[in-house]
């Protein structure tokens, strides 16, 4: 809101520099965001931000009241026309049919106005505050709104049919054209002001075109009322209509301000529009009163909450300056009555905040609390996430943070689409799905980086994936680790040659990861049907009986959606499931006491024979003396016949009980080699 300092001067005496006042207001919670000097005539404009709990600040009078409280100054109120001896407006009646929506409604008939030019000071102040001068009557109502915070509306009285003002719910399908020219179709939950025949205003939000005040208007009906905040808010939102009036009504206007604002308008009209007649006030309903009467403020609560002792007379002074009615109950505390413009003050804690605010947050000392150590819960989930991040980045992966919302295309790129959670009011129409997998987001990151000239992308992310269980159940969130390798495993250097990424690199990372976490009971199992992977180039990760994840080469049909031509490898691990299998404390195992002996077996076998099968057979034949079998060589072509491959295994023999001798092992090794030849129809090279 824009506040003119010159206008404030009508109510409180301020002296420059105004930056000082601005800072004092800011430190009292009425934040002055900007200060603009205004030339000829001299003024100073404050742009203030008003929090929703303080509708009383939405006027110059309200801001002046705060200045007076903060600076301990006296206030001067503007002049009003409230003479008791005005005559009744003959024939006019107000019919209040919706007392919840409008608890209190008042109106005055003003006859024989003259449309003089709006006085300069009004024009100028409106302009400084960002309003255009339209017509004297409209200008005066706007002026009083900015001055007192009470919205007012003037109707052309001659255009109101039947001299009958009805505050009622709209009828279904009833229509009205608002002042801004828009035709509105009303419903029964809208509050309207109507005459004998039709709605003439959308109550508290906007007047109607039909009864608008124009240069021809001679007689007006001036409305000043209290509309219920919720009703105004609902209607305003429904029609996406907002006005200076609705903004204030939906935040709650001061019930006492209804009469005061109206009488202030009448004073200005009388002085500047020279009317022939001003009627007595027509009223309906009652001013709403706060249900909270007196608030008990316990003196001991102030230091207990704030951590500072404030002197009794200071507390009394602060509350009084804020317009509160304070009675000393005893030495133990006070009974306090809040004024009508402070509906936000209902509890003792509200008063404590007021005291702190005016006393000055800057004057409250800074202390450090005594902190008793607490038994910390083992937040294993948080620990696992952090540990995983360190392990992943240690292996050369960059951590990404991508949006949890993805497009339908991205979401549908995998087969979890049916169970994805959708957003009904997305900011961007495309990004309307909570991702069921991290794959689409990570592929986008690969794409971005390729466009930016970084073709080798090693990334991971730990974030939730979201899954709908059934329509009526709360969706499930799984903390998920996603990893992507794309491009070269290593680039050529002057020392080494380059190599592409492979499935085995990604799998090796997962093995190292499990090893670091002390997970042993894992197994990789081939799967055939996972549409996100290239057929057969994928595996499931089992730990115990849980399928904790999958890895594989991304299905080229999917990676093509991101314009990715080369191979991309992806792994996804459910961290919640993994958590069950972590060995938090690792148990030491005795180191082998006797040396091992290594022997190699190189065989030529059909291409389809899996290395793992041979490895298992070798192990099985080892009579318990084989500690490890490793594939150290694999090649085909050259001297190897078509359809065959050469596999080299390095077998480590080791015993827990004795040193193995070469002869003993040689015998066993030959037997194993023979068995392999037979079993796999293999041959030695």
């Amino acid at each position, binding site marked *: 809101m824009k506040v003119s300092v010159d206008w404030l001067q009508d109510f409180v005496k301020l002296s420059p520099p105004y930056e000082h006042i601005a800072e004092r207001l800011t*430190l*009292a*919670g009425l934040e002055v965001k900007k200060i603009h000097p205004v030339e000829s005539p001299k003024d100073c404009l404050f742009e203030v931000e008003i*929090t929703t709990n303080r509708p009383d600040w939405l006027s110059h009078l309200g801001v002046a009241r705060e200045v007076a409280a903060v600076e301990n100054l006296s206030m001067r109120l503007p002049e009003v026309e409230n003479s008791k001896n005005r005559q009744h407006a003959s024939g006019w009646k107000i019919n209040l049919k919706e007392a919840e929506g409008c608890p209190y409604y008042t109106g005055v008939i003003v006859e024989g106005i003259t449309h003089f030019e709006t006085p300069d000071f009004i024009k100028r102040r409106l302009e400084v505050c960002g309003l255009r001068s339209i017509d004297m009557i409209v200008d005066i109502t706007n002026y009083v709104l900015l001055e007192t915070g009470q919205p007012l509306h003037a109707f052309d009285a001659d255009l109101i049919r039947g001299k009958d003002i009805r505050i009622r719910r709209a009828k279904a399908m009833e229509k009205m054209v608002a002042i801004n020219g828009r035709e509105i179709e009303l419903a029964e939950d809208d509050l309207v002001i109507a005459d004998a025949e039709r709605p003439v205003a959308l109550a508290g939000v906007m007047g109607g075109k039909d009864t608008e005040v124009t240069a021809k208007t001679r007689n007006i009906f001036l409305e000043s009322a209290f509309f219920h905040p919720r009703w105004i*808010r609902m209607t305003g939102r429904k029609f996406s209509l907002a006005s200076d009036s609705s903004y204030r009504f939906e935040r709650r206007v001061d019930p006492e301000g209804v009469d005061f604002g109206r009488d202030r308008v009448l004073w200005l009209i009388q002085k500047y529009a020279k009317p022939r007649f001003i009627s007595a006030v027509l009223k309906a309903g009652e001013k709403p009163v706060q249900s909270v009467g007196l608030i008990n403020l316990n003196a001991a609560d102030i*230091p*207990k*909450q*704030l*951590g*500072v002792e404030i002197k009794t007379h200071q507390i009394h002074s602060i509350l009084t300056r804020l317009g509160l009615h304070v009675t000393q109950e005893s030495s133990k505390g006070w009974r306090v009555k809040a004024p009508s413009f402070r509906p936000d003050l209902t509890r003792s*804690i509200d008063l404590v*905040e007021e005291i*702190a*605010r005016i006393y000055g*947050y800057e004057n*409250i*000392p*800074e*202390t*450090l*609390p005594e*902190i008793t150590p*607490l038994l910390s819960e083992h937040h294993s*989930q*948080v620990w696992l996430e952090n540990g995983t991040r*360190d392990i992943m*980045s*240690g*292996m050369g992966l*960059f*951590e990404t*943070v991508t*949006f*949890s919302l993805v497009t339908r295309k991205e979401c549908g790129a995998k087969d979890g689409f049916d169970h994805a*959670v*959708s957003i009904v*009011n*997305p*900011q*961007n129409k495309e990004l309307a799905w909570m991702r069921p997998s991290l794959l689409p987001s990570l592929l986008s*990151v690969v794409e*971005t*980086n390729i466009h*930016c000239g*970084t073709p080798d992308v*090693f*990334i991971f992310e730990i974030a939730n994936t*979201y899954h*709908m269980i059934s*329509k*009526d159940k*709360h*969706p499930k*969130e799984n903390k998920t680790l996603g990893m992507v390798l794309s491009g070269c495993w290593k680039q050529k*250097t002057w020392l080494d040659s380059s190599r592409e990424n492979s499935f085995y690199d990604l799998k090796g990372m997962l093995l190292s990861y499990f090893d670091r976490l002390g997970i042993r009971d894992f197994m990789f199992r081939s799967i055939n049907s996972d549409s996100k992977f290239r057929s057969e180039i994928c595996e499931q990760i089992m730990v115990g009986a849980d399928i904790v994840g999958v890895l594989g080469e991304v299905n080229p049909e999917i990676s093509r959606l991101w314009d990715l031509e080369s191979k991309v490898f992806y792994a996804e691990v459910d961290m919640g499931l993994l958590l069950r299998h972590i060995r938090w404390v690792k148990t030491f195992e005795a180191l082998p006491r006797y040396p091992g002996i290594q022997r190699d077996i190189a065989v030529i076998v059909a291409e389809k024979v899996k290395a793992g099968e041979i490895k298992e057979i070798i192990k099985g034949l080892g009579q318990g003396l084989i500690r490890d079998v490793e594939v150290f060589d694999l090649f085909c072509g050259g001297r190897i016949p078509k359809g065959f491959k050469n596999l080299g295994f390095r077998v480590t023999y080791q015993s827990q009980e004795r040193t193995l001798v*070469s002869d003993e092992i040689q015998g066993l090794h030959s037997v194993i080699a023979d068995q392999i030849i037979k079993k796999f129809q293999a*041959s*030695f*090279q």
Partner: protein
Amino acid sequence: MSETIDQVEEQAKLKLDTLNSPEELESFRIAYLGKKGKLAVLMDKLKTLPIEEKREFGSRVNQLKNYLEKAFEAKSEILHRVQKAPELFDETLPAICPRQGRLHPITQTIREISRIFERLGFDVVDGPEIETDYYNFTALNILLDHPSRDAFDTFYTEGGQLLRSQTSTVQIRVMQTKKPPLRIIAPGRVYRPDTVDASHSFMFHQIEGLMVDDKTTFSDLKGVIHLFLRELFGSDVKIRFRPHFFPFTEPSVEVDLRWGSRGWLEILGAGSVDPNVFDAVGYDSKQVQGFAFGLGVERIAMLRHGIEDIRLFYENDIRFLRQF
């Protein structure tokens, strides 16, 4: 008696390990793989064997030959390289760096902040992102149909749940399950339907903090927040406490940071926990008191690292990520 295949193999393997120069390697080659080398001798022996033994013997000799040839090549490569190095040493050649990943700057910021609070005995906890109206609004004293709710525009799911617009939801979840005293911080993702630009995003990260016992005061809040900001931004950091309004705290405060030519910048919101919040979780609001705060992780990361566009965090350009 000539040597058996096994003997040749074992000797060769032992010998291989001892080779230290190209010259030694060459004599090894002649001794084993040369025209009159040990393998040639074995091949000669093959001719003398009965037919039924020829096959196996032949294949084993071949296997050994194959192995030794490979081993020779591998060794040769190593020895020649080692040999070349001293002559050609060029310290200006590029070093070979191990590959290193990085943690995202948001993670680094969250960790740094968490570390400070963990030292003060706060536990780091987590909570769901898909929430209900109750946890995001009602229990936090944010009234339905009230303008204060406008500040918390929210994404809704098909099923009528919402994406939390603030990590304050975790306060409620923790207080519902634990009795005071408690000290927690809860980092996480939050969502608000904002148009994405250089300083806004519909998803960002917040850290919520909560300290509750029977005596923590507003002056303690000031002390803890100032201590935190000094640890994060340096001990000469200039801050101010400005009254504000949040539905879930009273008194409420916004904390501003003096940032060079940009003047005062709002850095976090805080306040003493509103009694209505304690009532909502079943605490006795007459017996307990404490403070809560909430801060935007991106905002702090942007200030500390001099990042001017929030979108950089979510693009994950590796040239950006590797700077932190």
